[in-house]
């Protein structure tokens, strides 16, 4: 992210933003000229300026006329519903309000690309939910390419048009959130995104058989299937298993069950209370055949 | 000659005295603009040394405490002779034979004691007595020009010599800082006897300080506050006029009015001082003092431990 914004210089390679080369052989546009907006993880609001001054700063830096800057600032503040707090200092704002100021400031740079580094990481879950909605609405309205970095998959899936899974600086998979959830490209992605179970099964075309049970699978043929908890149900004629852990998650129990002869424990959701040691019979209703 | 322009004076006279001197000179030569800097001899010389080092000495005239320093500057060729100066009235020991520097007043060093002291000393030898043990204060020749000359004069005295200084050391004397510090130690009662320049106790006694100054039998040493013109002087005419003014009877009267012993034998000394003719001076040879300066200081350090 710091490479894209130009705050750090890569050793080699090429970076294009909105069809303009900003880094490459002999080219290195300084950050102040890249026309990117950044929402920092810590928001990086200037504590000595009021909300309005923070938001107006990019205009000031561009030398825009004062009246014009004031108009645009008011516009942005209204868009993030902060008009009433325009005179406050950042320290007198709540976490969510600060985040909105950071957003408004980043809009004010009229950037063609917006980079957001875990903007919701420091908020409490309630506020995070609200802000998520606002970010989404804002993105829909502004139509600016936005690069959103987060560790929270739920957040990523809720917000993204295109999602990339990165590990140690390399992309593991690039696709829509639904793609990545339902059709992970590798076992690593499968394990990283959401919960699920990977085990060996006998795959024939679009069907897999495991301990006598036959269920539909899709994806590249392989010996390993990946099953999401939603595709595991309790059925009297299912495979016998023993619950190893069960946590209440509000409305359902997140559980793991062990099947004889299988190392991995099966991830499943239960609608009723369960305790470690309970016996259940499992039925798989669908899986994804992992590539080798 | 046309006496005008800017005259730069470096002096170690106390502020008020320097101001009076300059004012009187300007009253006589209103066309001369005097720029003067006053500081302790050490600092004046340090400043001058730095200016020499940078090849840009500023002063025309130097008016400092002692002849030894002048002798040193003369040896380095830093002084300009003033052959026309009229020194006929003065004792020849007070003036440089080549007329490079001229004494302007006598600041003698004798014995001072606190009036609460049990003994009234009359000679240097009295200070070696039992009453004075651990009660002695004196300025260090490493700090004070007057103390250097005092040491040089006493150690070359046939009856006193270095044995006398060794005796002082045995008495627990502890040479400290300059004359100001010594005087304070005695006036404040930390010590009871000591060497100090005359005017401090004589003037302060009139204000009520518990001190008394003694001209010892053997005689006193004296610094003569010599004045000299630098060879690099920008305005030699005014500089010469300044020197002439200081050694004229008029300038000498001024010194007396300021409370110092004038060098001119015919000018009456200020209140509280004996007449010049009644004061016995220890013999002193500035050239020899300069030559022995390093040796004397080394010997002093050996005796007192620096």
């Amino acid at each position, binding site marked *: 992210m710091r490479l894209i914004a130009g*705050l750090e210089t890569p050793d080699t390679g090429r970076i294009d933003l909105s069809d303009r080369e900003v880094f490459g052989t002999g080219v290195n546009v*300084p950050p*102040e000229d*890249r*026309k990117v907006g*950044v929402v*920092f*993880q810590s928001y*990086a*609001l*200037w504590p*000595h300026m009021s909300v309005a001054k923070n938001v107006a*700063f*990019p205009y*000031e*830096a*561009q030398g825009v006329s004062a009246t014009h800057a004031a108009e645009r600032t008011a516009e942005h503040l209204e868009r993030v519903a902060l008009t009433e707090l325009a005179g406050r200092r950042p320290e007198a704002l709540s976490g969510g309000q600060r985040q909105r100021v950071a957003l408004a*400031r980043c809009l*004010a*740079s009229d950037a063609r690309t917006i980079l957001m580094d875990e903007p919701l990481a420091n908020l409490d879950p309630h506020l995070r939910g609200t802000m998520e909605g606002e970010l989404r609405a804002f993105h829909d309205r502004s139509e600016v390419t936005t690069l959103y970095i987060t560790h929270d998959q739920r957040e990523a899936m809720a917000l993204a048009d295109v999602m990339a899974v990165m590990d140690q600086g390399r992309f593991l998979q690039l696709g829509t959130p639904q793609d990545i959830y339902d059709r992970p490209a590798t076992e690593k992605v499968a394990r990283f995104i959401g919960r699920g179970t990977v085990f060996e099964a006998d795959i024939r075309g679009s069907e897999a058989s495991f301990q006598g049970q036959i269920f539909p699978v899709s994806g590249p043929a392989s010996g390993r299937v990946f099953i999401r908890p939603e595709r595991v149900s309790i059925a009297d004629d299912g495979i016998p298993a023993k619950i190893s852990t069960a946590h209440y998650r509000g409305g359902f129990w997140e559980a793991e069950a062990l099947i004889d002869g299988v190392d991995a424990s099966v991830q499943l959701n239960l609608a009723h209370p369960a305790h470690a040691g309970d016996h259940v019979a499992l039925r798989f209703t669908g899986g994804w055949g992992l590539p080798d | 000659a046309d006496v005008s322009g800017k005259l730069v004076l470096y002096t170690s006279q*106390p*502020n008020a005295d320097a101001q009076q001197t300059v004012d009187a000179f300007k009253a006589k030569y209103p066309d001369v603009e005097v*720029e003067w*800097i006053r*500081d*302790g001899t*050490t*600092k004046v*010389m*340090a*400043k001058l*040394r*730095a200016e020499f080092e940078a090849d840009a000495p*500023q002063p025309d005239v130097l008016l400092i405490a002692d002849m*030894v*320093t002048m002798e*040193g500057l003369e040896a*380095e060729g830093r002084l300009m002779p003033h052959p026309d100066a009229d020194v006929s009235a003065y004792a020849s020991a007070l003036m440089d034979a080549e007329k490079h520097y001229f004494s302007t007043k006598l600041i003698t060093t004798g014995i001072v004691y606190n009036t609460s002291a049990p003994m009234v000393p009359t000679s240097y030898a009295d200070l070696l007595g039992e009453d004075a043990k651990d009660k002695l204060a004196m300025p*260090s020749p*490493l*700090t004070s020009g007057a103390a250097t000359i005092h040491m040089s004069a006493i150690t070359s005295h046939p009856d006193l010599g270095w044995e006398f200084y060794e005796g002082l050391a045995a008495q627990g004397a*502890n040479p*400290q*800082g300059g004359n*100001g*510090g010594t*005087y304070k*130690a005695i*006036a*404040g*009662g*930390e010590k*009871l006897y000591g060497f100090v320049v005359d005017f*401090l106790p004589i003037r*302060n006694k009139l*204000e*009520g300080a*518990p001190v008394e100054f003694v001209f010892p039998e053997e005689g006193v040493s004296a610094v003569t506050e010599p004045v000299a013109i630098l060879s690099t002087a920008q305005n030699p005419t005014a500089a010469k006029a300044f020197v002439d003014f200081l050694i004229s009877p008029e300038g000498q009267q001024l010194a007396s009015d300021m409370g110092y012993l004038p060098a001119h034998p015919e000018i009456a000394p200020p209140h509280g001082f004996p007449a010049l003719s009644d004061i016995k001076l220890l013999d002193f040879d500035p050239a020899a003092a300069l030559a022995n*300066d390093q040796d004397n200081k080394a010997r002093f350090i050996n005796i007192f431990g*620096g």
Partner: protein
Amino acid sequence: MGGEGVTFAALILICAALFVLPLGLLACVAIGEGLEAFLSALDGRSVPRAIWNSFESSVLSAFIALVGGTATALVLGLTDVRMKGPVTFLLLIPMMVPPHVTAIAWVQALGPSSALLQAIGLAPEIGSTHPLYSREGVIILLGIQHAPLVFLVVLAALRSLPREMSDAARVAGAKPARLLMRIILPLLAPTLIAGYALAFVSALGNFGIPALLGIPARYTTLPVLIWQRLASFGPTVLTDMAVIAGLVAVIAVAAVVFQMWLASRRRNALIGPPQPPLDIRLGRIRPVVETGLALAIMATLMLPVTALFATALVPTYGVPLTFETVTFANFAEILFRQSVTARAFMNSTIVAAVAAGILAIFAIFVARYAAAQNRAVRRVGTLMTALAEMTYAIPGLVISVAFILAFIRPLPLVDVSIYNTLTIILLAYLCAFFSIALKPVTAATLQLDQSLDEAARVSGAGFYRRMTHITIPLIAPAAASGGILVFLTAYNEVTVSALLWSSGNETIGTTIFNYEDGGYTTLASAMAAVTIIATILLMALLDWAGRRAPPGVVPWRL
């Protein structure tokens, strides 16, 4: 990059003019006369002994300062003693009193003619050797003089010590004593090391105290040895002085390097936001602790100051202060008759204020470069910091000589001479006191979140706009605090302007020194008394103004 480059180049030029040129010329003097002169300057017993004395007195006095300063800071920072504000204020005043005035005051306070000791019948016997004229006297007084420095540093660190660190120890069952020994002091280790180094370097460069107390005790330190060499008037004095000053600089730099090394080993990364101070309830021992504080104030402030006033109120030194002898003539003389006094107050105020302002801004830039991401730039910034540390330790008198060498001639190109003007004193202050301004600013810069600057960069702001709109406003409190310390230090200093003053350009310090030197002790005391009153008034004014400012601007405000 353009603006940044130009500023960086300008900064290097200024540093060259202020630090490298004068010190370089001095170094030329040291080695210019050839090896023989160089070695002869180091010859004899006096130099090794002075090195040892300097080292010993700095090490021991810094230890006294560390213990005293830390203890008071802990009491004021962690417990529920009352009147913290006024006590802090009073404890800091001794730091603002020039060292030679402190020494004079203490000598008078503990001597046979001490009004105070006479009143309680404890005055030493007339004619006895003054107890302060000794190695111990020098060390103790240096310790007292520099304890407030350590106090200030530790107090600031306590403010940023995360409170949960001590909370965790308390719920783990630690009593206050263990909490102090095992948690708080180890956590403060880097600060204690920095405070010790500060006290050490300050003691190393101190002239006033060893000059007034050490000379009579034949306890010569390097700065005093320089003075004595100057007093020998010979043609080689400058070489001698430059060589000895070089020794001081070497010791100072070695001390600072050692400090950085130690601190890097004891680095405890925990800079938190300001926290409400821990209030350890002292319960029954509170009156005891409060009495202790009161005694400390009595000893470090009241005793010397009353002695000074007692001397200022008598017609001549040695006359005991009684109803018959009391006179305001000395005050009348210096305040209304001597024009030099008013001029000195005026000059010192102007020069100290201008120096404080310039250094505060200068420090922001140097600290920024010393924390820069670019390695080469950071190196240069660090070098500037090291130079500042050196000039702080080099005795002021030597700085004076270096500035005479550098600026006696008219400046090239403009052909204006600054010699014998206030400007040269100002430049020397900039050189000598830069370290004081730099310290708080460096600390603040290291704490500053880099993303604040980056956020401005991606907003399209160039170097100057970022400096003026973001960095400077954010660092301003620390810079103001450094500036205030520079002002108070420069206001009273005597050695830096010792050779640089001229008639019309006197400073407060040189005026007091000249009175004392000329034998006018009572006038000197009166002037020193007025200076102390003026300093207290200034501090009170800053204190009052600081009520509105963000925390940390006025260094002593809790």
